[in-house]
């Protein structure tokens, strides 16, 4: 028992740890590397993402080259077989052409009407970004039914863009590299597309099932109305990923007139024969206006502009008024203050004036008194010279001439 366990351990160790001849790494170290890749990859580690992108660019190109001979053989076979079928196909095409010509005009009218109604409900999308790409690799793996195209982020390809083949939906972009992108085909089991079945307008989800078939899931109405013809499967536009009305395939309704969840959708396009595809993104169209509406809109716009301008002017005026009011109040206050000041000053002025007058009066009085004093003093000295007596021919005391004479120190002044 002990020996067999030892043998097992030795064999296991030898298998995983021993480097064989011409082996640079042991198996365990490489397994370890793979696990690291997986773990870091699941966490979107930057270095792993760069490595992944580099490997992708290399591998997609090499795969295109490696697949060259096989593709050449396949294409040659297709050319030969189509050449052999040429006569029959031509007959069929001529018949089909004449019937299609008849349908063409009514279809054009329908398309125009459809556009008009979609515009009315604001659900009209127009191609925003469009690119035609070549299919590099068409490896239908069991895990992911996808194709690789030769356009990448360099050509403005973005995740989620719709991929069409001659107007029919074939998939969407799920991976974008610099020069290449991966398209998840609608035949993949992971691809879930909101679809609408016409006629009947039955909504549902379509999932991929097989190379040329899809399966309906989550159908709202299982019972069909009285429809006994094949049904068209179109994108419903629900979820906003795809534009509504892109044709996908057909459903052949059976005699039981009932759709069940296993109902198969036959795709219009053969996914194994894809060579060139169109990658499109859609945006809502800006409403197109006719001339009168344009004029109306212009007038309205001008009116709005004028109103805005007036409103602006009004706002400015209100602001100015506010400022003016503030200034007025300020000035009024100042004015009041100045008035009070003026009244105070006037009072002071009056008071001073009175004071000056009083002073003046006092001064005058003093002056008169001084003059009187001076006269009296000089009268003492020169009175006898001016007085009229029997020897002196003078003036009568108390007259103005007498006073003048005294003040002139006794000198008689004539006239």
């Amino acid at each position, binding site marked *: 028992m002990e020996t067999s366990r030892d043998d097992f351990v030795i064999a296991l160790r030898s298998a995983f740890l021993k480097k064989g001849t011409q082996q640079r790494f042991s198996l365990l170290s490489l397994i370890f590397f793979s696990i690291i890749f997986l773990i870091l990859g699941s966490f979107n580690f930057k270095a792993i993402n760069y490595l992944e992108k580099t490997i992708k660019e290399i591998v997609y190109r090499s795969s295109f080259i490696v697949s060259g001979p096989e593709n050449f053989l396949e294409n040659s076979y297709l050319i030969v077989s189509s050449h052999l079928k040429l006569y029959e196909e031509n007959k069929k095409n001529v018949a089909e052409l004449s019937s299609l010509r008849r349908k063409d005009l009514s279809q054009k009218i329908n398309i125009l009407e459809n556009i008009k109604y979609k515009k009315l409900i604001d659900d009209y999308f127009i191609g925003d970004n469009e690119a035609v790409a070549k299919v590099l690799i068409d490896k239908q793996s069991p*895990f992911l039914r996808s194709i690789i195209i030769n356009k990448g982020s360099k050509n403005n390809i973005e995740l989620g863009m719709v991929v069409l083949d001659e107007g029919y939906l074939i998939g969407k972009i799920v991976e974008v590299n610099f020069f290449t992108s991966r398209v998840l085909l609608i035949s993949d089991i992971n691809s879930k597309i909101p679809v609408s079945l016409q006629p009947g307008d039955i909504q549902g989800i379509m999932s991929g099932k097989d190379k040329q078939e899809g399966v309906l899931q989550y159908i709202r109405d299982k019972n069909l109305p009285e429809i006994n013809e094949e049904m068209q499967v179109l994108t419903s536009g629900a979820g906003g990923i795809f534009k509504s009305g892109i044709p996908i395939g057909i459903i052949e309704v059976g005699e039981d007139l009932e759709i069940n969840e296993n109902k198969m959708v036959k795709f219009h396009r053969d996914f194994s024969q894809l060579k060139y595809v169109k990658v499109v993104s859609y945006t809502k169209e800006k409403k197109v206006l006719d001339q009168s509406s344009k004029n109306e809109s212009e007038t309205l716009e001008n009116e709005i502009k004028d109103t805005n301008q007036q409103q602006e002017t009004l706002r400015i005026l209100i602001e100015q008024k506010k400022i003016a009011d503030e200034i007025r109040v300020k000035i009024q206050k100042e004015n009041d203050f100045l008035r009070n000041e003026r009244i105070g000053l006037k009072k002071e002025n009056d008071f001073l004036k009175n004071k000056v007058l009083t002073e003046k009066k006092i001064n005058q009085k003093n002056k008169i008194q001084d003059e009187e004093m001076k006269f009296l003093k000089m009268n003492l000295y020169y009175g006898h010279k001016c007085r009229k007596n029997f020897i002196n021919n003078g003036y009568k005391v108390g007259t103005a001439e007498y006073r003048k004479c005294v003040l002139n120190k006794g000198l008689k002044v004539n006239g």
Partner: protein
Amino acid sequence: MDKIKKNNITQYILKYIPIILLFISVLNEFDFNNLGLIYFSFNFSYILIFYYSLKKSESLGYIYIFIAGLFNDVVVGTPIGISSLMYLLLCGAAAYLRNITLRPSLIKDSIFFLITILIINSLLFMYLNFVFNYELNYFDQIINITYTYLLYFLFAKLFNFFEINILGNRHAG
């Protein structure tokens, strides 16, 4: 045959045939793993890796197998590293079988191969389904495993023939 054996350049190229086959099988659009038939598919890479790791381990370097796995992930669109891990686990199983086998027999090898691919496909299924939310068809996986197992006999004989009669390696079987 003798002329081929004597020509050194041809001999050199033939020596690398398994590696070339492995890289072509992972890079080529034509995939046995998904032939577009409902009830038929098989994993050629598994058969090639198991056979050469068991019988002639020096023909396929582990590092080449690791790189082939990375390439396969990129082409197929699975998370990078998962195919490498599966291929290397297959190599490990083959190396273990080589170490414990005294008298090789195709039946025993094939049974061991069946168990190994059952385990690694289960691992792959669980990892893709539970970690990355890939929806896989269980029935397709079973079909794939069954045919891979059954075709192991055919390809083992073919590789034996190639090794013995073209490369002149008498110890291959």
